[in-house]
């Protein structure tokens, strides 16, 4: 099967390259329990956004920033 060549301007999108994650997913990615993620949010260490009906979402960029700064 032929594959469509990727160009530099259009990097391959993988399932992990999402814009944001749920609290549960963020907890799994960080290797901590749900409470730890909510504690990071409460302390302002992890900035979240409210999407759709108000559910908290953790932007991928914030997760990466957290990992880089700690």
């Amino acid at each position, binding site marked *: 099967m032929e594959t469509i060549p990727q160009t530099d301007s259009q990097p391959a999108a993988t399932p992990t390259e999402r814009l944001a994650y749920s*609290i*549960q997913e963020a907890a799994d990615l*960080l*290797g*901590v*329990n*749900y*409470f*730890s993620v*909510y*504690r990071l*949010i*409460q*302390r302002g260490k992890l900035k979240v956004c409210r999407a*759709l*009906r*108000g*559910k*908290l979402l953790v932007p991928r960029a914030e997760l990466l920033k957290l*990992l880089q700064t*700690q």
Partner: protein
Amino acid sequence: MNSRLDSRRLTTLEEQAYTEVKEHFAEHLKQFPASRMTVERLERDIAKIALAADMAASQTPQGNPIPTNDGTRWHRSVDLTDNTCLCHRPVTGGVEYAALEYFPDRGRHEIWNRGGNVVEVLKVFTQEQRQALQVWMEDLAVQVGEFLEEKYPRQNMSRAASSFMHHLTHAISQQSAQTLDPNHSRSIRI
């Protein structure tokens, strides 16, 4: 069900929705009561934990000191939760205390809060745990509402949602009652 919420029994459809919510949010149902129970224990045992930490600080440190993200090194006094502990270190003119949190993905500890007064360190830490529980509770209520709206569009499932949130609270009450045992101090380790 709490009669103050709504004394009427859930309809068959609401019961079905309630069961689905419990299954979908099973992990929250497992983790939230345990976390809240831990916070309640901390609130109740502040004086006891402070005393244990004070005693630990007055003794010769045992084990390897814990390095933190700011370059300081701490001696473990008391475990607070499964991934946080109260620690101490000698400083000029006394002892400094800190609540440390362990991040398994990075394999290191981070300082939550610190200070020379162990009771104040514990109070601030505990208050922030309580606030984090509130953030969790509010977010979970939104998630439950969203889940039910998607599963049962154009139907009012607020009673099923309320029942779930009440179940969560009730589960906490039951577990908390069990921990009122005065001998419950297993997590305090000097």
